[in-house]
């Protein structure tokens, strides 16, 4: 059952990508895309476990859209942060590597979490060991695990927890 769900999700992702990249709805294209997607997803997703934790409920969908908005806002903020740090003559940095904890269990969710952390203001995931993330923070405010977790992780985690569990 789980592998079937994996297969279906993978198939739809590939099929949508095929339509987007060809940019048309001709029957020939749909047929070839269907064949390619089925072949590719049966080769790669026969035993894979990437998409099995994804939740296909309306609430998860709403949270996905909300998450994308939050992410884009954070990305733009982080770029202005970078611009400020680079341009100001005194180079205001106070770097260090801190440890934070995550509650997420699914692999996909953890990947998206670390990617988001890398792209948000002043943080970069250096390593991940079990459920501890080691984060290079360009402006260290606290070295305590709980406070750093609250500062860096939680505003993404509360969305990802609903989507991936």
């Amino acid at each position, binding site marked *: 059952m789980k592998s079937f769900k994996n297969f279906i999700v*993978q198939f739809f*992702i*590939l099929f949508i*990508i*095929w339509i987007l*990249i*060809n940019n048309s709805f*001709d029957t*020939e*294209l749909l047929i*070839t895309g269907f064949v*390619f*997607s089925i072949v*590719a*997803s049966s*080769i*790669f*997703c026969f035993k*894979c476990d*990437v998409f099995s934790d994804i939740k296909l409920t309306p609430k998860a969908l709403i949270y996905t859209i909300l998450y994308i908005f939050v992410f884009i806002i954070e990305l733009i903020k982080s770029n202005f942060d970078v611009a400020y740090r680079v341009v100001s003559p005194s180079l205001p940095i106070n770097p260090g590597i801190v440890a934070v904890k995550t509650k997420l269990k699914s*692999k*996909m969710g*953890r*990947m998206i979490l*670390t*990617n988001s952390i890398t792209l948000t203001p002043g943080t970069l*995931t250096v*390593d*991940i060991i079990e459920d501890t993330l080691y984060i290079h923070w360009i402006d260290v405010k606290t070295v305590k695990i709980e406070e750093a977790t609250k500062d860096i992780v939680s505003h993404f985690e509360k969305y990802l927890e609903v989507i991936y569990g």
Partner: protein
Amino acid sequence: MYKKLLVFATIFILAGIFLKLYQNFDGSKTLNKTASYYAKNGASEVGSTNIVTAIVVTYRGFDTLGEVTILFVAAAIIGFFLKTNAKGTNRIRNLRFSSEIMITASKILMPIMFLIGAYVFVNGHLSPGGGFQGGAIIASGVAFFLLANPTLSVNHKVLSVLESTSGLIFVLLGIAGLIYGGGFLDNRVLPLGKFGTLFSAGIIPLVYSFIGLKVGAELSNIISSLQQIQKEE
């Protein structure tokens, strides 16, 4: 000292030659005989939107067969030499495990890279691209997978079966052109179809798909044999 002088003299002579060439250069305003034939008759004879593909696969199809053979021989030689060298030593290197994020990302991105490779070689007769480029994209997908999972290896048997089957089908399609069309690799075995759609230009999409599979399998074979020798040492 003499050596340096010689180098400088050579550079100056070359510079003089190139300067002369540059002064006499005025880009050709008209196509020569062959090129103008291809440009005038390519679309109606072959039915391919991308004239480069028409030349590579149909007018000069035999050369393409030779290129694919060269690539095959290169892959075979690399595999051969690496295999004989690997036997003597059996020191085990402790490979570092790659991070969990990289593994997950490779699982997500691998199918997408393969799909894009397939897109490039299927659309060879409509847009820039074709078998060689698509095969290279597929092989870089395989390289990405091997970077993420250094302890795993690609199944060589599957690759060699894929490679030889697609090579065989490529030659068989050429012979079919000899029987049903006007010569080796003539593309009018299948109907030419409507100009500018996916199923057009006769057998060009089919031939390019098999070239793409063959090139992808060969390059992945090279990469995975290099990876394997790293692992075995």
